[in-house]
């Protein structure tokens, strides 16, 4: 009997009651007007300015959710352990390695991916193409997203600042010299557009 009594748990605040009526009374009094509580594992994300609701497993990474489940395949898995930067997304304004963060930790957060950056017509895309800042292209979205995060905070970065920001991104084709050129070109366009 004791087990059954403990089942009357408030889904909003976790308080326990002896009966269904007791719990109902509590919910009506304490939580009247609030939206229905979400199920366990249900998260809300703003992805590229659009609201998304997902039911996620606790073990899913943000990368897995967005790449495999949502199908935005721009972010790439190269190293699988936070060493390469290819899966970078911008979460609440900061570049984050999406293979190293659980999706469930991102509930309520704002996520930007390379697809959103491209859809917005950000000058980085054109600058990357113009300067051949890519070869096989697998790591390129990670560079673009990291660069976007830099330009969001610093619209006139020096070469050293760009290199510092991008030094965590690996490119096996070794396109490195072109990235500062592309980022500076995009920064110039952003400034002149203001």
């Amino acid at each position, binding site marked *: 009997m004791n087990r059954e009594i403990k089942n009357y748990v408030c889904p909003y605040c976790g308080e326990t009651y002896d009966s269904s009526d007791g719990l109902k009374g509590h919910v009506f009094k304490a939580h009247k007007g609030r939206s229905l509580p979400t199920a366990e594992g249900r998260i809300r994300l703003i992805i590229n300015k659009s609201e998304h609701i997902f039911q996620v497993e606790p*073990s899913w990474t943000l990368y897995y959710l967005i*790449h*495999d489940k949502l*199908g*935005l*395949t*721009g*972010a*790439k*898995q*190269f*190293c*699988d*352990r*936070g*060493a*390469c930067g*290819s899966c970078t997304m911008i979460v609440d304004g900061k570049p984050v390695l999406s293979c190293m963060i659980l999706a469930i930790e991102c509930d309520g957060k704002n996520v930007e*991916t*390379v*697809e959103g*950056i*491209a859809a917005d017509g950000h000058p*980085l*895309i054109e600058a*990357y*193409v*113009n*300067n*051949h*800042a*890519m*070869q*096989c*292209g*697998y*790591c*390129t*979205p990670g560079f*673009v997203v990291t660069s976007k995060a830099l330009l969001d905070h610093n619209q006139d970065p020096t070469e050293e600042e760009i*290199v510092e920001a*991008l*030094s*965590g*991104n*690996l490119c*096996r*084709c*070794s*396109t*490195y*010299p*072109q*990235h500062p050129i592309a980022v500076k070109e995009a920064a110039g366009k952003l400034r002149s557009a203001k």
Partner: protein
Amino acid sequence: MSTHPQDQTERMLEMLDNLESDKYQLKECKFIGEKIPRRIDGLAKASGQADYTMDIQLPGMLYMRLLMSPYPHAKILKMDTSKAEKLPGVRYVLRYDDPEVMEAYIIGRNAVFFGEPDKPLSGVAHMEGELVGAAVAAETEAIAEQALSLIEIDWEERPFNLDPVAASDPSAPLSFPERYSDGNHFNRGVYDELSHGDIKKGFAEADKVVEFSFKRTANTWVGPERPCGVWKWNGDCAEVWLKHQRIHLSKSRISEWFGGIAMSKIEIHSPYQGASFGGWCQIDWNLGPLWCAALASKRSGRPVKYIFNRREDFFGGSMDEGTYFVKVGFKNDGTITVVDASLYHVNAIWPVFSPVLHLHDNTRIAHIRGQSKSISVNKGHTVPTRCEMLPPVLTQTLVLDRVAAELGMDPTEVALKNDGCMGHDMEWVREEKKKRGFPGRDSLKECIDQGKAAIKWDEKWHKPGTKRLPNGRMHGIGFTWTHEWEDSKGSSEFAIRIERTDGTAALLGMGADNGVDAESTYCQIAADELGFRLEDVNYNPHVYRGFYRMTPDSSSNMSVNGWAVRHAARILKQKILESATSPSSATQRGSFQPAFPDTKPEDLDIKDSVIFSKSDPDRKMSMADFVRLDGAGGPFADDEFLGTRVGWSEPLFASSYHVQYGANNPVNPRPHFCRQAHFMEIEVDTETGEIFVTRIVNVNDVGKVINRMSCEGQQYGGSIMGVSRAKFEEVVHDPVTGVILNGNLLDYKIATMKDLGPIGTILVETGLGYGPYGLVGIGEDIATVVPSLLAPAVYNAIGKWIYDFPITPAKILKALGKI
């Protein structure tokens, strides 16, 4: 209907012989050689829309993980897969003792000797990471992974070898007793031998003789996209997504599976590829897991995708791994009289090239002998990673720079003194150039002169170990050189079709994208040859439309595909002009008159995608107006009842091909005339042993530049990868357990953006290549040559030769006697 004229055919056949200069170059080029920002793949890659095989998901698709040996040498005694089979979400477990697996031969897998027929799943492993025991297909990758961990195996662990020299000792344990029961020399000893002249005579002629050995430890390609593939059955037709550099050969192999699948029933997709630099180009290697996916798909009725994890991409290495022994004789003026070299090569399963190949190709050295002994050890096989030329390039650099050091000479002088070809001097080389119709330019001298000026060699080169910089570090500068090569044998087929409605051109030829922007380059050639605007020529290499470009894909591509595209474009242009001057059809209402009546094809030309009369340029018609729509919306649309021509052409399409045997054809070798020279400046901290590469200058004589930005990309990209290999990269095996200790990107270091100073890129155009317009390829070269350059640069800085790659801080400190 028009056909291309006989003279076109003859011209094409003449160009197929590969042994002479290009006699039919364009007089005017608008796009060839220019710095053109357009990358045909640029927008898709930058915006994240480019799909790779890893991104492919199909409805109902299962994920396959394969069991790989945790031991370097072991046999399965007993395997229990029952727990894995019961795991929820597991849909299929394939066992190595399955009758169909037992009978499956000529499949390939990631085993040590992948060139030989074998089963896709084995019961014995001869390397850590060999596919053994089982493959699991499940609803998710995570479930498949969990199922693998539930498989219980009783192993018989066997003794193993890791070092090639030790393994070649008769007392060493057998690395592969099932196949080589009498020793570890693969292919029974010397695998490749190259010699000319008389070794004894060469040493007798020498004023001085030095002997040394050097070593290159295991290193690997680190492809960003992990090995993977997808198989889907559409009835008895196969649909396959491949991460592979040899698409057509893979398809040929697949056609032999399951009792035979008609080639015309196999649909291959070649999505963008997260490069593997040759690492996964070996046809047999990753077809084993694909076969397992195909069988699991057949039995489960669902598409199956196999995936390796990051660590599993480390089981295999670059082809320079081995221990080299060199004896060299030379005169006091720097003339080398003889080189005798041998290489104990780790698991090299190709007909590997001799360590002296480039000394043979590039120099006048009269007496040369080189032997490559492929030794079987219990590590992954070594394959051409960027290029199989790594061993001969490493040997050439260390031999020539060592001779210069022994004599206290400038190494650029020693280079020019020994420049030549196949044991012949420069007089012979000049005669050969003339005979073959090439210009009489001296490629090495031009490369050296430009490189020296760019890096200020004459100011900066100094006696070894003598220049300490104000920051306390020792300054060093190094130089090396070799020829530009483009040697792979292979063939290419290309076609070009003019689209209806807008008259744009589509190149047809399936290929594996390897990132060098080859696709834009072929468009540049086609646009200039056709007289089209560049934006009117497009190319999607990912889908099969009846033609395969050069395979192997990524080797010798420009020199072979370039010809095929050019042939096709020239035939097509002729066809367009003939069509424009011929009636295109006849109906009961009358005939369709020529677009240019009373005109001959030779009276017309095409410029900016517009056909025009050469004598009256105002008489013109755009390609779009010329081809018009097809069907009822086409020839009849404007004025059907008059029965006059209102815009219609025959289908405009042309195909062509090219074959290349390669320079190393022993019957009729073609001499290499284009050279490359590289310069590296470094600083060495003698307290920490750290090396700082502060500047590199690459000078490449590519004969003729087609896509300038692509060539430069190969220069700086190759330099960075080369320095990364020389300074950092080493797959470390535990000598006690034989397993890899650093199979991940945190512990296996590759260069980052911070690891190199500026890189100067100089392109020389002597027209001395055998490709179209006198070009030669560049993609394999720089990352192959630059690693060797670190040794002479370090010698110049600290006065010590370090003959053990990678050159790490610990090795510097050891050479300085500090540890």
